């Protein structure tokens, strides 16, 4: 019972982190164009692509992790979810470091 509660707590925590990543990406998606508009700039196609990728990436990672772990036990499922979270975080970090945000504007 205690193990079950711990497992669900970990699951909720991981899901919360995924949700935060989506919320943060949506914040970027809505606020960055506003900032650009205030500066008299627009967001170009590649900019929109990277902004939308930030939103879609955690969702894809979450879905893939749930799909990969659908026939597994709790521990393996949590491991897959954590792995996908780490991979998504690494990819977002990579994008933020490799793609200069100034290239989003035109």
């Amino acid at each position: 019972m205690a193990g079950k509660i711990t497992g669900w707590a970990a699951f909720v925590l991981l899901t919360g982190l995924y949700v935060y990543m989506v919320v943060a990406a949506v914040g970027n998606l809505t606020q960055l164009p506003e900032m650009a508009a205030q500066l008299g700039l627009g967001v170009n196609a590649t900019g929109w692509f990277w902004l939308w990728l930030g939103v879609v990436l955690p969702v894809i990672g979450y879905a893939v992790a749930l799909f990969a772990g659908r026939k597994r036990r709790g521990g393996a499922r949590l491991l897959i979810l954590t792995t996908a979270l780490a991979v998504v975080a690494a990819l977002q970090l990579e994008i933020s470091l490799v793609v200069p945000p100034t290239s989003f504007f035109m």
Partner: protein
Amino acid sequence: MLFKSSSVSVLQAFREVRLARLVYMGIEKDRASRDAARESSLASGWTVEGQPELQPKVRVPQTGELVAGLADPLLDETDTTADDVKQMSSGALVLLGVIGGVYLLFTFVWFSWANAASVANASVASTSGSLGGVLQQIVFWVAPFAPALWFISVLVLCRGKKVWRMSLWLGLGLVVLVPLPMFGGLF
């Protein structure tokens, strides 16, 4: 009557001869078998020295079969294949070691980038909400664990599967998790 008796006697004499022959043959056979027994005892004398070495060789597969026989029903219950009992080949182990080393290198590089990102973000996050800042720091610091977690996940999920399948997933991880900022000069 006389003829009969003589013939009988001749037959009897023959019987004697045949008996003698049979006895002789029996003796011969006995001797042969005795010789064979002596030879086999000699041979067994040769194997006496080999026996302590031979016995474990014979016993190891027996115990292995026993273990496999014991483990099989258990494995069936836990819904995994019998390949779990098999050990990895040395080639697979070397492959795992090499790929694991590359993953370790990736982990190191990601840690340095995560550190840089979290420091850069800390100054920005200090002005924004505390919860968002904390969560963002968690997300930053979970990124460096991606290579290690991928490696462990592949090992866990591909346990008992073919080696090429495992190496395929590990190779995919190398492609996905390559720290591109390391080649910053290219972009």
